[in-house]
């Protein structure tokens, strides 16, 4: 059982010429193995900033990040060990893989860096990981531009799982994929979570999938947490008006237009 906790996390960016921008304001969050937490919010709400701070690509301005109750290490062997435990899947499958290197390189690097298996066993482990994400082991010799978006994202997931982490941060893992294949990738994530007992932070702007795949939903608005709770509760009985607005924004075929709800900008009656 591993738990990552964010307490009172604040992040301030310095903007050239006009002072500061508050990206995160006093955020509390926790991820535990075996559970999925969805972080929901619109663009600019600070979701990706949280991901970057968790993976230590950026430093928080104030607040604490605790792994199993202890502050996370910032350098040296401790940082290495931390990084092995917490991995990230990036949003853009076209940009998160190095166009120059093969799939094998991408998956083998973390294996070698963290010495997950002895050198001799790397090839087998790579093949095993590819199978785990439902890709053919033969894909290992290909380069990213030879793969489809969905395949690339699976490779990214395999790369994230290579170090056998306890926690996974998935930053909008399917928003740049075709709608028809999103479910497949999300189902894969759900299966992997169950099989490996992963704790997943699922960052998204899509309420529907958030509800479907997570146990808990945290709603972020302009850097502040405005609502949190079990998924069904938050969706069916939203308390904050922003959450309500989010929910109402998803199209519902059973709802009627013209009831004065939506602003009709054209004004025409055709």
């Amino acid at each position, binding site marked *: 059982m591993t738990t990552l906790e964010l307490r009172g996390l604040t992040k301030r960016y310095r903007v050239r010429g006009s002072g500061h921008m508050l990206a995160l304001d006093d955020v509390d969050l926790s991820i535990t193995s075996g559970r999925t937490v969805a972080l929901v919010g619109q663009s600019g709400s600070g979701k990706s900033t949280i991901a970057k701070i968790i*993976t*230590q*690509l950026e430093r928080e301005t104030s607040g604490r990040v605790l792994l199993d109750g202890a502050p996370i290490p910032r350098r040296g062997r401790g*940082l*290495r060990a931390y*990084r*092995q435990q917490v*991995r*990230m899947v*990036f*949003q*853009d499958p076209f*940009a*998160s*893989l*190095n*166009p*120059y*290197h093969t799939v094998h390189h991408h998956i083998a*690097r*973390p294996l070698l*860096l*963290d010495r997950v298996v002895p050198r001799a066993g790397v090839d087998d482990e790579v093949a095993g990981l590819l199978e785990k994400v439902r890709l053919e082991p033969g894909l290992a010799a290909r380069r990213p531009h030879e793969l489809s978006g969905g395949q690339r994202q699976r490779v*990214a997931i395999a*790369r994230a799982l290579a*170090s056998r982490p306890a926690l996974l941060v998935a930053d909008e893992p399917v928003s740049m994929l075709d709608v028809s294949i999103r479910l497949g990738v999300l189902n894969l994530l759900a299966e992997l979570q169950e099989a490996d007992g992963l704790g997943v932070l699922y960052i998204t702007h899509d309420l529907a999938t958030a509800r479907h795949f997570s146990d808990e939903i945290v709603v972020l608005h302009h850097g502040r947490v405005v609502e949190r709770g079990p998924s069904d509760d938050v969706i069916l009985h939203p308390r904050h008006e922003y959450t309500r607005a989010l929910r109402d924004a998803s199209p519902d075929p059973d709802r009627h237009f013209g009831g004065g709800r939506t602003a009709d900008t054209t004004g025409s009656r055709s």
Partner: protein
Amino acid sequence: MFTNRKSITGLVILGLFALLAALADVVAPFGPLEKDYTALKQPPSATHWLGTTHLGEDIFSQIAHGTRGVLLVGLTAGVLATLVAVIVGVSAGFLTGWRGESLSALSNVFLVLPAIPLMIIVASQYDDPSLFLISAVLAITGWAWGARVLRAQTMSLRSRDFVQAARANGEPLWRIIAVEMLPNLTAVIASSFVGTVTAAVLGLTTLAFVGVIPITNLNWGTILYWAQQNGAFPEFWWWYVPAGLAIALLGAALSLISFGIDEYVNPRLRSAGERARLQKKRTKRSTA
């Protein structure tokens, strides 16, 4: 990037010059300074393909032998300058804060300093500079442009997700630069290298023409220097025209290679002509 038409043409011409340089002793009918007092200032003929100088030296042989000096210095200067450009440029792009800014300022300073006056002053100091020294002087004035381009490319690469992913996985810095980023910079490095060689060739021939580099280093600029000094003007066109043409041809070949690389990097340039032609065909067909 080396398979499109422009690159291939450029590479072929460059290859021919390289062959000429390597096989100068075999191809040239005479030694470069071999004097034939019976044939002074002769226009091109069967024996002397490009005519002779005022001392009866065969101009074609001079050009053939001079190729060696030009190519050697050009390539050496190119290698040196590109090496410096990669080290400074990539570091300037990757490092943030004052370190990156000061490296960038350094390359900007060298970029603005006018090259030729500096080269003239420095080169005039030495009585018999070796080829390496000349290359070094050319490299010092020529590295800054490549560094600037590499810095811009590195900065854009640095924010790409796959670099962030490598960082998040705990890859050491040197591996991120050497293994993850450098391979994506090869096109830019190649283009910068070619540009630097072109500048070095022009710089070398200019310095030789001006007489700042002693005549012991035979290159095409030296031929022009002799022509100028010994009244080749304007009647003895065979003396000064071929050397200049050779410079232009080599420069054009290098530029073609550079364009080929540019088109590879910017796919819009590649298909621009083809698409426009296709469009014309289509509109013609539809209005027929």
